[in-house]
Structure formats: structure tokens, C-alpha cells
């Protein structure tokens, strides 16, 4: 029985799923932490913005497979080190989020920022309690793209032996066993949907004010 394969390999599938989640989402977190200050710098300075935002976009155009292979030479890791995938996907996340952060902060009404300054906010606290919260909706949109894109890109890592659920593709192909490939696709799709849904939920919970309709 071919279908038997799934229940017999539940343990292995779970392990691969866990690896996939870590490889895809750890870079999203690191990327976010890096992109916020870079995007903030870009939003505050026109000259910096004209350099930083296009530069970040260019990073995203590097083919993932090429990056996985070139990285070990640059950062001194072994070719099969999962760190290569984490670093590469962090680069992509930063590439996507710098623009999001810069746009999100740029969209905060200047009147509101001026009011905050005039109330006596210092720049650091103003950023944390006024500008960043108001940037959340656009930021969440950027995070959703980055997270889903990472979940799909992790599988490319399978070609260098580190790919979470992507390994089901390489293995299924070598063994000429389509069920394994389909299982991989379905699991990756479900993972992307669940993560995307969670981000939407986080966005909703953290921005109750966006749903406060006019003149309730």
C-alpha cells in the first residue's frame, strides 16, 4: 500500500516540519530586528533612502541557490551547514522589510509626529510609542510576504542538503515516489497558510484602533 507511507513516516515528517519552521521563521525574526533600524534610517533621511531601499531590493534578486552555495565562501561555514540557509533567508527578509519599514514609517502622518515632539517626547520614546505602533499595519503586510517567501525558499536548501520539507522533493524525485513530493507540497502550503493566518491575527490584536470605524 502506497498510502501507508504517510502514517509510517509521521515521525520523520514531524521532524522535517519542525526544521522547516525554524529555518524559515528564525530569519524572519532576525531580519525584522535588522530591518527596523535600517528602515528607520531610510525613512528619516532622503539621501539614505535613495541608497538603502534600492540596495535592499537588489539583494532580493540574487538567486537563492547561488546564495546558498556562495555564502560558505564568504562567511566561512561548511557547505552543508544549516547556518547558510538561515543567513541567506535573513538577507532576503531584510531586503523585503527595509522597504516596508521605510514606507510604514514614512506613512505616519507628519502632524502626528510633530504633535508628539511638541508634547515633549524624546526621539527614542517617540519612535517606540508613536511611530512604530502606527507602522504596524504596513509592517505586518511586509512580514507576511517575507514569512511566506521564506517558507517556500527553505525547500530550495534541499539541493544543498538542508531544506526541511524540501528534502521530501529531492528524495521523492530520486525514488520516483510522487506521494512523497505531494506530501511535501501540501505540508509547505499548510505551513504557509497557518503562519500567514497567525501574522494576520497578531496584526489585528495589536491594532484595535484600525477597526474603530468613523463616528461609532
Amino acid at each position: 500500500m502506497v498510502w501507508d507511507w504517510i502514517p509510517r513516516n509521521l515521525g520523520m515528517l514531524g521532524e522535517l516540519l519542525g526544521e522547516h519552521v525554524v529555518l524559515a521563521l528564525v530569519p524572519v525574526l532576525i531580519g525584522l530586528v535588522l530591518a527596523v533600524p535600517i528602515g528607520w534610517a531610510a525613512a528619516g533621511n532622503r539621501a539614505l533612502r535613495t541608497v538603502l531601499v534600492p540596495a535592499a531590493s537588489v539583494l532580493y534578486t540574487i538567486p537563492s541557490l547561488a546564495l546558498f552555495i556562495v555564502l560558505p565562501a564568504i562567511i566561512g561555514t561548511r557547505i552543508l551547514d544549516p547556518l547558510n540557509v538561515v543567513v541567506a533567508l535573513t538577507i532576503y527578509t531584510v531586503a523585503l522589510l527595509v522597504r516596508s519599514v521605510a514606507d510604514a514609517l514614512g506613512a505616519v502622518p507628519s502632524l502626528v509626529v510633530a504633535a508628539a515632539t511638541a508634547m515633549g517626547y524624546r526621539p527614542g520614546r517617540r519612535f517606540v510609542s508613536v511611530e512604530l505602533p502606527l507602522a504596524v499595519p504596513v509592517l505586518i503586510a511586509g512580514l507576511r510576504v517575507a514569512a511566506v517567501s521564506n517558507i517556500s525558499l527553505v525547500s530550495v536548501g534541499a539541493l544543498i542538503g538542508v531544506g526541511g520539507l524540501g528534502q521530501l522533493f529531492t528524495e521523492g524525485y530520486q525514488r520516483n515516489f510522487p506521494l512523497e513530493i505531494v506530501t511535501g507540497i501540501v505540508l509547505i502550503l499548510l505551513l504557509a497558510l497557518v503562519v500567514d493566518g497567525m501574522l494576520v491575527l497578531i496584526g489585528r490584536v495589536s491594532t484595535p484602533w484600525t477597526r474603530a470605524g468613523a463616528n461609532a
Partner: protein
Amino acid sequence: MIEFRGVTKRFPDGTVAVDGLDLTVEAGKVTVFVGPSGCGKTTSLRMINRMVAPTEGTVTVDGRDVMAGDPAELRRGIGYVIQQAGLFPHKTIRDNIATVPLLLGWNKRRARARADELMEVVGLAPEMAARYPAQLSGGQQQRVGVARALAADPPVLLMDEPFSAVDPVVRESLQEELLRLQGELGKTIVFVTHDIDEAVKLGDKVAVFRTGGVLAQYDEPGVLLDRPADGFVDGFVGRDRGYRKLGFLSDELPLTELPTVRVGDSAPEGWSLVADADGRPVGWVSGEGTVEQSAVLPGGSLYEVGSGSLRSALDAALSSPSGRGVAVDGDGRVAGALSADDVLRALAASRADEAA
């Protein structure tokens, strides 16, 4: 007291926004900066809380140069009401109002209690405390803006075209409210507007700026309307300045007796004023016969004896269908009638007094 001494603001592109400004804003009074756009009124205001730094000269608040010390500390001690309110959209009304107290390190409970207190002061219903700014009307948002500026009880209040984005009716009620509040609080208020009517209504003193950041005239509103310093001020205060000036003259006007009728009574020939059971005016009817509710024409504006100005008296006469302005007492009951001629005679008398 706020003092500008030889203050000039030149922007990096070479534009001079404010040119050699010398001006003293008196403590406890409302001072209005008015002028066309590009006259430097907002820039001047923003130099008081150091949102803009002067290129030359000094601005002092109570003798202290605003450029000395920490700008954030300075700003926490100066209330600021910005155009279109500038509320924080992600914070509730209560948290918006509590902003400065929280920045000053008050504990949350005390800051929120203060916010609730201020909502009452500016006339906002308590159930609005948990709402977000987008759920309020423009006029309500503006009240929140005023409450937020007052939260830490600063002696100085800066208001930058605060009522420009609301409709005329709401604007008028906000202006009245501000004058009422000021009567209770006695803050040093600097108010920026491009609307000369608003300026003469609110200001104890009005500073008229001309394009290029030059102070054209700084006087009490009555003086400004009566004796504009030059052609620019004359042109800016407008063609209606004679009429506006009536707003600064009040006089005992001789009232004539005004008999009233009630709905269902029999009216004499000509115009009759209809009043309700309490003696408050309802409207006018013309012609003999029984007064029908449907035949009552809406009356004009009312002149309140004692608190009214010659302007409101003249308006009462001019807006009344019968040509007789209705004067009411403090409780809104009919006190008598006046005519446009009475107002003009009072005006002539006040001129004669002034000349003597």
C-alpha cells in the same frame, strides 16, 4: 510672559520666515498671531516651544531663553494644540489626554484620573474615554486636543490654527468654549489663525503679520479695527471692519416696549412678536386675526441686554422680519425692542465720548 527680542528665522534655502521680531506676549492673556500664509505666524509660534530654532535673537519664556536646557522638558511645560488636533490615532481618548502627565512620570492611575477630569472640563462625555480618535467628530477631536494640551496644567498654551478644520458652526462653539475656559483658567495663550474674525473675537491683543515675517501691527482688537497702522493692515482687516468694530462697543441701548401675543390670541394689525408661556420669543406674525402656529415666521437673532455688543444689537434689528430687533434678558425672556437707528445713535454717542 513670553518675549521675542530681535528674532529672525532664515531657512537653509534662504527664505526669511520671521524678520527681526520684537514682541511681548502678556501673561494670562490671549495673544493672537494673524496674517496671510507665509507671514511667519506659525514659525513664530513654534519658536516658543523650540520646534523651530531662531537664526538670530532670543525667545524667552518667563525670562528663560528657550534655547537653553532640554527641549523635551521645555515642551512638557507648554501646552500645544496643533492643526486638525494631531491626536495619536492608536491611543484611546483617555490615553491621548494623559500623554504629557505620563511623560512627566505620573503613575498611570493618576494620569488617567486627570484625563477623565479634563474630559469634563472641555465638555466630552465620559463614555468617549475608551474610544479612538477616528470615532469622534472633528469638533470633538479638537476638544480632545485642547484637553491634551491642558493635562499637565501648563501656564502657557500654544494653539496653531486649532479650529481651522471644523465647520463654521462648530468653530463658533469651540471659540466660545475657549473664551469660557480662559475665563476660568487665565492661561497665557498664543493663538495662530489666518482668520481676522477669529483673531478679533479671541484676542486680548492681536499681532498682524505681513508676508516676509514682519510684524505690521500689535494692538488690542478694537484699536486694530479703529486705527489700522497702514494700508496692509487696513486691507487685511477687511471691508467689514467698521461693522466688526461694533463688536467691541457695548452701550446701554434705549429699549422700546414690545407687547407680545401667544398662539391662539388675537393679533393687532401690523407685525406682532409671538412668545411662549414663559415670555421667550418664538417668532413674528403679520396682520390682524387669530395667531396660527403655522403662520409664525422665525425671528431674527436676539440681543441679550447687558452682555450683548452693538454688533449683536444691530444684527438683531437687521435680521428681524419686522425690522424691530428683539432684546432679551439673561433668562431669554423678551425685554423690549430696538431699531437699527437706535444702534446708530448709540454709535454716534460713543464716538462723541471717545473724542471728548
